[in-house]
C-alpha cells in the first residue's frame, strides 16, 4: 500500500503542477492558445487516473484555466470526485474549483447534495468550513431546500468558525429558498448576541442585507441594533448597522430622533472615511424622514455638508465621487445648504474623471432655480461644445433637458430661451438623443400655448435647414427633431408666417431619405398645412393660388407613394386621392377649404403616460371572461381555413370600394365621436375641467409680455439662446424696477402671486415673474383614475420573495424540509422527517462541550418566543416543554427590554406594548399551569403527526422531581446514542421571594448509573448549578449520567442544596429527590425505513412480547403521537389502524413495535434484541396508554 502510494507520487512528480502551468503559459506568450490546449489534453489524461492526488492537481490547474476564461464545464464530474476526497488538501481544491465553475445550470450539481451534507456534518471544522464556503458560491434552489436544515443546525455549532459561516450562508439560502426565512429567523436573531464577534458580525451582515430590501419587516429589531451600534467597535458592523438604520428611519421617524446624536458623535470621532460616509448618509436619511416639523437640525445638516465638502475636496477620486453622491441626497431636502457650495460643484464639472463630472451634473439638476437656470445651462452648453466623447456629450444633453424640464418646467421663466436652447442642441452631431429633443419640442409646443407662435417660427426655420440636420453622415439620432418640427408646423400651422414656403420645404425630394416614421409624419402634416393654406387662400379669394397649392401637392406627393415604408405609402396614396378629389372640386369652383380643414378640427391634448392604465375597471366587468366561448379544437381546425379565406375576400372587396368623399368622412367622424362619447373607455377630449377653462377665452386673455422688438426675433439661420439670456436679464431688470415702484405704493399687499405648482420656490425666485404667463396644460388623466402606483414595482425583483412578515407565528406548513432518504418514499409518516436532526442535537450535549452548551442554553432561554416554533420542528422531544417552562423568566426579560424600547421610541410602541401587556397575564397563567401539571404542554409544538384527527392533548416529557416552599424541580431525560449516556435536564423554578444561589446537586451513584462530574471531583462531591435564581424565575440545568445496563428502570437518590438569600439574611436549604430513569428514557428516536425494518423483523434474533390495553377512546393518530413523544419511537409505516414503530436504545438495542387499534383497545406487539428491556418498555407504555 505504502509502496503504491510512493509510486503514485513518483508518477506524479512529472506532472505539471499549478506553478509549472503558470510558468509555462508565461513562457509561451506567442502560442499561448496552443500551449493551453496541449495542457488541457494533459489534464484530461491526468483526470483519467485513479490517484486522487493526480486528479486534484489536474482540477487545480483547471481552476486556473477557468480564471483565464477557458470552459471547464466538461470536468464538472471530476470536480465532484475531488470534492469527495477524504483529505482536506484535495477537498479544498475540489470545492474551490466548484465554487469557481459551478452555476445553476450545472446539471451534476444535484449529485453534490449528499457529499455536501456529509461534509457539513464532518467532525473536522475545516471540512465543514470549506463545504460552506463552496456552497455559498453555487447554491441552487434545490440545494438550498435540501440543506437548509443542516445549515440551520450548524448555526449553533460549538465552533465560532463554523457558526459564522453557517450564519452568513443563510442569506444565500434565503435568496434561493425564501420559505426558509421564517423558520430560520429566530435563530438568526439569536446570533446577533453571540459571544463571538465574528458570528455577531455575520448575523448583522445577513440581517442588514435582508432588511435593506424589505425594511418594514425588521423594525422590531431596531432596539437591538441600537444597542449594538452604541456598543460595537467593529467598523464593519457599525457600517452595516448604520446602513440598516438608514433604511429603517423612513418607516419609523421616531427612530431617527434617537439616532441623530450617536451618529453625530461618530461623525466627529471616527477617522475611517467609510464609516464617516455611512454616518453622513444615514443622518441624511434621518433628516429626510424628519423633514417636516423638525426645525433645529440645521446644525447636523451643516456638519454633514461640511464633512462632505472635505470629501469632495479630497484628491482621491473615490472620495470625491462619494461626497458628490451624498451631497445629491442632501440636495433633495435641503437644497439651500448645498446651493452655497455651487462653486465647488461647478468646479467638479471640469474634473478629468467622467464619472465625477456626471455626479456633479446630477447635483446641478437639483441646484437650479429660476434665478440661475440660464446661467447654469449656459455653462453646460459650453461643456457640450467642448466635450470630446459622445457618451459624455449625450449625457450632458439629457441633463440639460432634465434640468430644464424638471417638475413641469418649474424653473423656466422664458420659454423662447428654452426653445432656442433646444434648437441649438439639434446642431450636435451624432447624438443618440434626437428623440429626447423632439419630445421636448413637442411637449413645450403643445403645453405652453403662448409659445406656439414662436415655436412654429423656429421649427419652420429648422425645416428650412433640414438638410443640415438630415445630411449629416450619421443621420441616426438627430433627424428625430424633424419629426417634432414637422408636426408642430403642421398642427399649429395657423401661426406660420409663410406657410407656402414651409409647405415647399416639407415636400422636398430630400425628405424621402428620412426614416419611414418621420416621412409618415411629414405626409400627414403636409395635409394639415395644405388645409390651412387652402383656407387662407379661399378666404382671400385667391382661387388660383389655391389651385396652385393643390397642384404642388399632386406633383410632389407621388414621391411618398413610392416609399418603401408601408405607413408612408398608405398615407400618401390616401392623401393623394383626397387632394385629387379636392382638385376636381376646385375646378368646379366649389369651396372646399372648410371641409378639408374639418379633417383636422379639434385639438390634440397631452395625455399622461399612465392614463390608459389608470382607467378604473367598471364594476361587473370581468376582463378575463370570454365574450364568446372559444370554439373547441376540432371545430376550429375545420373552420379556420374557410374563415380565413372568407375574410380575405372581404378585405379585397373593401379595397375596391370607391374613395369616400369628405361628407362621408365627416359623417363617419361625427358618428365615431358620438360613439366615443358614449364609450366610457375612450379618453374624451373635452371634459377635463382645466382644459375647458383654457379653451374658453382662447389664448388671447393671457397677458403676453411683448418681446422687445428692437432685437429682431427672427434671427437669420438658427437662433442663439444667448440673446434670450440677455433679453431675459433686461426684462428682469425692468421688472424689478417696476416692482420697486409698485412696492412703494402698496407694501405687502401682493406677494401671493399665483403659482403654477404647489412647490415652494425660494424667495429670490418669487421675484422673477415668468416672461410668458403660461399655463402649462397638465396632462390628461381619465376621470376617477386610480391613484395607485403599484405598477412601479418590478415583479422580477428577487428580493421581493423575501418580503415576509417575520413577526407572525410560524405555521406548520412553513417548516423546513428535513433530510429525507430517497428510497423512503413509501414511509409517509411525518415523524420520520424530524428524526435526523434530533439525532444530531442529542449528540451535542456531551461531556466536553457540556459547559459551553449550558451557557448557550441559558442564553437561548432569553430569546424570543418564535424560537419555540423552530425548535419544535427539530427537537420535539425536549425543547417544546422546556421553552414553556422557561417562559416566566423570558417574560421578565422581555419586560425589561420593552421598557427600554419605550424609552427609545415613545408613542408608537405604547400601543403595541399595551396589547402585549393585556395578553401577558393570560400567557403567564398558561405557563404556570403547565408547570404544575407535568403532563400538560401545548399540543402545537409536537410535530409527530398531522393533527387532522382532532385535538391532541398537551404533552410534556417533564415530570415533577421534587418541590418545597423555595423551589420546584421538574426533569426530563434524553438519551444520546453514543457512550451510553443520558442527559437529565432539570428545570429549577424559584417559588420563594428570595434569591437562590450556590445551588449544588449531589446524587448517590449506583453501580449502574453514575453522574458525570467535572474532572478531579470525587464521587461525593455535588455538581454546582451554573446559575442563580432570582425570585419567580426558572432556569434549566443539564446533567449527564453514564449508564451501564439499560434493561431495567433505575432510581437514584439525590439532594439539591442551595442558599436562599433575602433581605433578612441567608439560609441554607436542602431538597431531596429521586431521579427515575425509565427504560423509555434510554431510547432515542431514530428513523428507520420500511425495508430495513422488515429485514430486522425477518432476522429472527429478536425476542417477542406483547401487551393489550382496553378502554381507549383516543384517536389512533394521537395515540401514535403520544407513544412517539413519551417513548421516543418513530413511525415506520402506518396502514389504517395499524402501525409499525421503531426505536433504538442508547446501547444499540433495536425495538420494533406493531401497534394495532381495535374498537376500544390497543394491542402492542414488540420485538427487541433484549427481552427484559422490551418487557419493561411495554410496561411503561401500558401505563401511558392507560391514561388515554
Amino acid at each position: 500500500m505504502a509502496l503504491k502510494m510512493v509510486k503514485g507520487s513518483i508518477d506524479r512528480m512529472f506532472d505539471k503542477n499549478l506553478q509549472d502551468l503558470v510558468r509555462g503559459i508565461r513562457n509561451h506568450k506567442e502560442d499561448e492558445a496552443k500551449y493551453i490546449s496541449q495542457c488541457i489534453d494533459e489534464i484530461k489524461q491526468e483526470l483519467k487516473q485513479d490517484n486522487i492526488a493526480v486528479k486534484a492537481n489536474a482540477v487545480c490547474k483547471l481552476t486556473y484555466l477557468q480564471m483565464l476564461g477557458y470552459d471547464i464545464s466538461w470536468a464538472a464530474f471530476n470536480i465532484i470526485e475531488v470534492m469527495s476526497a477524504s483529505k482536506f488538501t484535495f477537498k479544498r481544491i475540489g470545492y474551490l474549483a466548484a465554487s469557481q465553475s459551478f452555476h445553476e445550470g450545472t446539471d451534476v450539481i444535484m449529485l453534490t447534495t449528499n457529499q455536501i451534507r456529509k461534509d457539513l456534518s464532518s467532525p473536522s471544522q475545516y471540512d465543514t468550513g470549506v463545504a460552506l464556503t463552496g456552497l455559498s458560491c453555487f447554491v441552487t434552489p434545490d440545494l438550498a431546500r435540501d440543506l437548509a436544515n443542516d445549515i440551520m443546525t450548524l448555526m449553533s455549532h460549538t465552533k465560532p468558525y463554523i457558526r459564522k459561516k453557517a450564519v452568513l450562508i443563510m442569506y444565500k439560502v434565503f435568496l434561493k429558498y425564501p420559505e426558509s426565512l421564517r423558520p430560520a429567523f429566530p435563530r438568526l436573531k439569536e446570533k446577533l448576541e453571540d459571544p463571538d464577534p465574528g458570528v455577531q458580525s455575520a448575523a448583522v451582515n445577513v440581517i442588514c442585507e435582508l432588511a435593506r430590501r424589505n425594511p418594514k419587516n425588521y423594525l422590531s429589531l431596531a432596539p437591538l441594533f441600537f444597542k449594538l451600534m452604541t456598543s460595537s467597535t467593529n467598523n464593519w458592523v457599525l457600517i452595516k448597522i448604520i446602513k440598516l438604520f438608514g433604511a429603517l428611519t423612513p418607516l419609523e421617524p421616531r427612530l431617527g430622533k434617537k439616532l441623530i446624536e450617536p451618529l453625530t458623535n461618530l461623525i466627529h470621532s471616527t477617522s475611517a472615511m467609510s464609516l464617516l460616509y455611512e454616518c453622513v448618509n444615514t443622518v441624511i436619511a434621518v433628516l429626510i424622514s424628519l423633514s417636516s416639523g423638525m426645525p433645529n437640525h440645521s446644525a447636523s445638516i451643516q456638519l454633514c455638508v461640511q464633512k462632505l465638502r472635505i470629501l469632495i475636496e479630497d484628491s482621491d477620486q473615490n472620495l470625491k465621487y462619494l461626497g458628490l453622491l451624498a451631497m445629491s441626497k442632501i440636495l433633495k431636502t435641503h437644497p439651500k445648504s448645498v446651493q452655497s457650495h455651487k462653486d465647488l460643484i461647478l468646479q467638479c464639472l471640469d474634473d478629468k474623471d467622467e464619472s465625477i463630472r456626471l455626479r456633479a451634473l446630477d447635483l446641478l439638476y437639483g441646484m437650479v432655480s429660476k434665478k440661475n437656470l440660464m446661467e447654469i445651462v449656459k455653462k453646460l452648453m459650453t461643456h457640450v461644445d467642448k466635450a470630446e466623447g459622445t457618451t459624455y456629450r449625450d449625457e450632458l444633453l439629457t441633463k440639460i433637458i432634465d434640468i430644464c424640464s424638471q417638475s413641469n418646467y418649474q424653473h423656466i421663466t422664458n420659454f423662447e430661451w428654452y426653445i432656442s436652447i433646444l434648437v441649438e442642441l439639434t446642431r450636435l452631431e451624432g447624438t443618440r438623443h434626437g428623440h429626447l429633443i423632439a419630445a421636448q419640442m413637442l411637449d413645450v409646443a403643445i403645453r405652453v400655448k403662448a409659445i406656439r407662435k414662436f415655436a412654429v417660427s423656429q421649427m419652420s426655420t429648422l425645416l428650412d435647414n433640414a438638410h443640415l440636420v438630415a445630411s449629416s453622415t450619421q443621420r441616426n439620432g438627430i433627424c428625430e427633431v424633424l419629426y417634432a418640427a414637422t408636426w408642430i408646423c403642421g398642427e399649429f400651422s395657423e401661426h406660420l408666417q409663410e406657410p407656402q414656403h414651409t409647405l415647399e420645404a416639407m415636400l422636398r425630394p430630400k425628405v424621402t431619405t428620412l426614416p419611414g416614421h418621420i416621412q409618415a409624419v411629414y405626409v400627414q402634416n403636409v395635409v394639415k398645412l395644405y388645409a390651412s393654406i387652402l383656407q387662407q387662400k379661399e378666404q382671400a379669394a385667391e382661387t388660383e393660388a389655391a389651385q396652385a397649392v393643390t397642384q404642388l401637392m399632386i406633383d410632389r406627393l407621388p414621391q411618398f407613394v413610392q416609399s418603401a415604408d408601408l405607413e408612408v405609402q398608405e398615407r400618401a396614396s390616401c392623401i393623394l386621392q383626397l387632394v385629387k378629389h379636392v382638385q376636381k372640386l376646385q375646378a368646379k369652383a366649389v369651396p372646399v377649404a372648410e371641409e378639408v380643414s374639418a379633417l383636422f378640427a379639434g385639438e390634440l391634448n397631452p395625455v399622461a403616460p399612465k392614463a390608459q392604465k389608470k382607467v378604473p375597471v367598471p364594476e361587473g366587468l370581468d376582463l378575463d371572461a370570454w365574450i364568446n366561448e372559444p370554439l373547441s379544437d376540432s371545430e376550429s381546425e375545420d373552420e379556420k381555413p374557410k374563415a380565413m379565406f372568407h375574410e380575405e375576400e372581404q378585405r379585397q372587396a373593401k379595397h375596391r370600394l370607391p374613395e369616400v368623399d369628405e361628407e362621408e368622412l365627416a359623417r363617419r367622424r361625427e358618428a365615431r365621436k358620438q360613439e366615443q362619447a358614449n364609450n366610457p373607455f375612450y379618453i374624451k377630449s373635452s371634459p377635463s375641467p382645466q382644459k375647458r377653462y383654457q379653451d374658453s377665452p382662447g389664448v388671447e386673455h393671457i397677458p403676453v409680455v411683448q418681446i422687445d422688438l428692437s432685437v429682431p426675433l427672427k434671427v437669420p439661420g438658427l437662433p442663439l439662446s444667448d440673446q434670450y439670456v440677455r433679453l431675459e436679464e433686461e426684462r428682469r431688470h425692468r421688472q424689478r424696477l417696476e416692482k420697486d415702484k409698485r412696492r412703494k405704493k402698496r407694501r405687502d399687499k401682493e406677494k401671493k402671486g399665483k403659482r403654477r405648482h404647489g412647490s415652494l420656490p425660494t424667495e429670490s425666485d418669487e421675484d422673477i415673474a415668468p416672461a410668458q404667463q403660461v399655463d402649462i396644460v397638465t396632462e390628461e388623466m381619465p376621470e376617477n383614475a386610480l391613484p395607485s402606483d403599484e405598477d412601479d414595482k418590478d415583479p422580477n425583483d428577487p428580493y421581493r420573495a423575501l418580503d415576509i412578515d417575520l413577526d407572525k407565528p410560524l405555521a406548520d406548513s412553513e417548516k423546513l424540509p428535513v433530510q429525507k432518504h430517497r428510497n423512503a418514499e413509501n414511509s409517509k409518516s411525518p415523524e420520520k422527517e424530524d428524526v435526523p436532526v434530533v439525532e444530531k442535537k442529542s449528540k451535542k450535549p456531551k461531556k466536553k462541550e457540556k459547559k459551553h452548551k449550558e451557557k448557550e442554553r441559558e442564553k437561548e432561554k432569553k430569546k424570543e418566543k418564535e424560537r419555540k416554533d423552530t425548535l419544535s420542528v427539530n427537537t420535539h422531544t425536549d425543547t417544546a416543554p422546556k421553552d414553556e417552562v422557561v417562559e416566566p423568566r423570558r417574560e421578565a426579560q422581555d419586560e425589561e427590554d420593552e421598557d427600554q424600547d419605550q424609552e427609545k421610541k415613545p408613542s408608537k410602541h405604547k400601543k403595541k406594548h399595551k396589547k402585549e401587556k393585556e395578553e401577558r397575564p393570560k400567557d403567564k397563567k398558561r405557563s404556570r399551569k403547565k408547570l404544575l401539571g407535568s403532563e400538560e404542554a401545548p399540543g402545537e409544538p409536537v410535530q409527530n403527526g398531522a393533527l387532522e384527527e382532532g385535538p391532541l392533548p398537551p404533552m410534556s416529557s417533564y415530570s415533577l422531581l421534587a418541590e418545597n416552599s423555595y423551589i420546584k424541580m421538574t426533569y426530563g431525560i434524553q438519551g444520546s446514542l453514543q457512550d451510553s449516556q443520558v442527559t437529565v435536564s432539570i428545570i429549577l423554578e424559584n417559588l420563594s421571594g428570595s434569591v437562590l444561589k450556590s445551588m449544588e446537586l449531589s446524587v448517590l451513584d449506583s453501580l449502574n448509573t453514575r453522574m458525570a462530574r467535572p474532572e478531579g471531583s470525587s464521587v461525593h462531591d455535588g455538581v454546582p448549578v451554573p446559575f442563580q435564581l432570582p425570585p419567580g424565575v426558572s432556569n434549566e440545568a443539564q446533567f449527564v449520567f453514564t449508564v451501564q445496563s439499560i434493561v431495567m428502570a433505575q432510581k437514584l437518590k439525590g439532594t439539591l442544596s442551595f442558599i436562599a438569600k433575602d433581605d433578612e439574611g441567608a439560609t441554607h436549604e436542602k431538597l431531596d429527590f429521586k431521579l427515575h430513569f425509565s427504560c423509555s428514557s434510554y431510547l432515542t428516536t431514530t428513523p428507520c425505513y420500511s425495508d430495513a425494518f422488515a429485514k430486522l423483523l425477518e432476522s429472527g434474533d429478536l425476542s417477542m412480547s406483547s401487551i393489550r390495553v382496553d378502554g381507549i377512546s383516543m384517536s389512533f393518530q394521537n395515540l401514535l403521537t403520544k407513544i412517539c413523544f413519551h417513548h421516543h419511537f418513530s413511525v415506520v409505516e402506518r396502514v389504517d389502524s395499524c402501525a409499525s414503530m421503531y426505536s433504538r436504545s442508547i446501547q444499540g438495542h433495536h425495538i420494533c413495535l406493531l401497534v394495532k387499534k381495535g374498537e376500544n383497545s390497543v394491542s402492542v406487539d414488540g420485538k427487541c434484541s433484549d427481552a427484559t428491556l422490551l418487557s419493561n418498555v411495554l410496561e411503561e407504555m401500558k401505563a401511558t396508554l392507560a391514561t388515554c
Partner: protein
Amino acid sequence: MIQAILVFNNHGKPRLVRFYQHFVFVETLDKCFENVCELDLIFHMDKVHYILQEVVMGGMVLETNMNEIVAQIEAQNRLEKSEGGLSAAPARAVSAVKNINLPEIPRNINIGDLNIKVPNLSQFV
C-alpha cells in the same frame, strides 16, 4: 454584495485601502505571502482564493479581524501539511528541482582534474 475584488498595485498602495480601512484583504495577503507582489498572486492563485474565502464568503464579508483570518489560514495550512506527510515529500523535492532551471547549468563542469559531462537536459516544463 461583493461581486469582485480588484487589487491594484498603485505604487505599493492598494487604492481602496484608504477608504475601506477595515477591509483587510490586502494586508492579509501581505502577511501570508510576506510582502506580497503580483507574481505571488499569479503563481499561487489557489492560495489567494483560500485567503479570500476566509475574508469574503459568497459575496459577503465574513471576517474583518486580520489575526483571526491569519490564524485560520495557518491552521488549514498545518492541516494540509500534516496530511501531506511522507507521500507529498517527493513532489516537493521535484518542485524544488524544477525551480533550478536546468538548461542554465553548464554543459561541462570542470573541478580541478575532474571533468563532468552533463547530459543534455531539457527544461522540465
